[in-house]
């Protein structure tokens, strides 16, 4: 069954989009990620213009993160003060990102920039995760326990000024890295249409030494609001949010996520991380392939007034 997307101005298959949303939702539920980094490339592979894929992806991230954020809110595992500081940075980063987005689009380099960012980030994060999880699997076989958090160990971040106390995280740390991290995530959210959890979570754990029990909740809290803000700014500046497309992805996504979460409970943490790493690397490779292999046509057309 076909459906016409009013903003993308094209006909697409409803079943394909629902399945795409459900598959990504399943994976995001299983791995506890937002799924934006899968949705946006998949939409691009499905010939949705990248500008629309990114803005609509940000909208879908809101729906896929709200459910997780709510359950963390109920459990009380969100550090609101830390989350709000991250969000402040996120709003700045996202505003800059949407501006850069519009600029790149006008000079015809947006698609390239999106692909490059995806390849670089997913390649790096996926590679690091794969190495880390393989080590963890080997350690688990060897039987040595390992803790992610190493308290007492200080790095350069703890020497920065403007320190602030975050009670829920039992942290006393400078706000500069917190706001900078939020800004980077906001920037990526607006240009890549991702939530940024795959960068946020490791950064909070390894750089800021936030206790693992509040990491995911705080990250989700920030992602929901940064993605919501990004959606609104994209809608206002570029008019590239396709609500019909977003809604189809959301329906598939929220349904898939609940089943994915169930499936995820049966797998071990490090195995899950290794699988996620492979998935992330696969998406990066697929995008890199498009960059390096001669395209079917060297020419492309862009209408100036519309999309």
């Amino acid at each position, binding site marked *: 069954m076909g459906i*016409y997307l009013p903003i993308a101005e094209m006909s697409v298959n409803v079943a394909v989009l629902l399945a795409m949303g459900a598959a990504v939702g399943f994976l995001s539920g299983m791995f506890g990620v937002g799924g934006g980094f899968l949705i946006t490339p998949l939409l691009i592979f499905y010939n949705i213009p990248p500008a629309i894929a990114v803005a609509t992806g940000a909208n879908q991230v*809101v*729906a896929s993160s709200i459910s997780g954020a709510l359950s963390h809110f109920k459990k009380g595992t969100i550090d609101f003060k830390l989350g709000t500081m991250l969000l402040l940075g996120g709003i700045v980063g996202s505003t800059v990102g949407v501006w850069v987005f519009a600029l790149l689009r006008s000079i015809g*380099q947006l698609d*390239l920039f999106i692909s490059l960012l995806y390849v670089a980030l997913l390649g790096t994060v996926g590679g690091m995760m794969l190495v880390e999880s393989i080590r963890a699997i080997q350690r688990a076989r060897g039987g040595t326990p390992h803790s992610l958090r190493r308290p007492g160990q200080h790095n350069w971040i703890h020497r920065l000024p403007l320190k602030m106390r975050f009670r829920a995280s039992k942290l006393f740390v400078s706000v500069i890295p917190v706001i900078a991290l939020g800004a980077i995530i906001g920037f990526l959210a607006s240009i890549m249409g991702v939530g940024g959890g795959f960068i946020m979570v490791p950064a909070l754990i390894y750089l800021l030494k936030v206790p693992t029990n509040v990491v995911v909740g705080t990250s989700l809290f920030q992602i929901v609001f940064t993605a919501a803000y990004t959606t*609104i700014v994209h809608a206002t500046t570029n008019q590239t949010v396709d*609500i*019909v497309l977003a809604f189809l992805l959301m329906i598939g996504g*929220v349904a898939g996520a609940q*089943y994915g979460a169930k499936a995820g409970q049966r797998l071990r943490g490090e195995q899950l991380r290794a699988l996620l790493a492979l998935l992330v690397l696969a998406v990066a490779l697929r995008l890199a392939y498009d960059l390096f292999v001669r395209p079917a046509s060297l020419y492309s057309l862009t209408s100036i007034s519309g999309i």
Partner: protein
Amino acid sequence: MVRRAVRFLVLALIISLAGAARAQAPEVTNPESIQIGLSTDRVIITSDFAGADLTIFGALDNSDPLVTRQGRYDVIVVLEGPARPIVVRKKTRVLGMWINTHSETFVNVPVSYSVATTRAMQDITNPGNFRQMALGAENINITPMNRDGDPATLVEFTAALRERKKATGLYSERIGGVQFLSQSLFRATLHLAPNVPVGTHRARAFLFKNGVFIKENSAQLAILKAGFEQRVFRTAQTHSFLYGLFAVGLAFVTGWVGRFIFRKD
């Protein structure tokens, strides 16, 4: 007063004389003409739109039965979309990657251009005539914004523009798309691509006799999005902030409701 009456009389005389001359020698004035009619003046794009065929009926007036019998009348029907500025970009290899490096802007490119003909274009008349009439996807006037650009580059980008438009189905040609139903009645079937742009399109019909252009006629066709699609599109353009707010609200509600419906614990 009198003078004016005289002048009127003279004028009336001249007109009646001309009328008499025409009545005496009808074959000299070559009065064939072509009419087309659209069954509708608007096509609505609904949510299940996946391309469509548009049928245009037309008639020849005062056609010569002898020429008709020999099949020497040819009709070309064109449906031309609104003209918009377009940027054509070319990728070249930089550091192993294919990157947009060159671009050329054209100011008045018809967004779509679909042609239906009675026979292959080259069998109707010679290419020079088509070029002179700017008829056919190969011959439409495409004006570059930078007129002083390198001619070879402009030729290359213009060709690429046409090739891309054909590849996406927006420029199409259907040989045999125009069929004569009777001596004077014909039917043209044109293709509307799934990505046909909205706006005012112009249907034009051209009549050829023995390879000579005789007459042209045209009609307007509005292609619109259906109520819902149109409203979404309009809202996104005019009330973009509220639209964004609504999109976020929808995401909140979907995520929240989905949690209750699909919760497995």
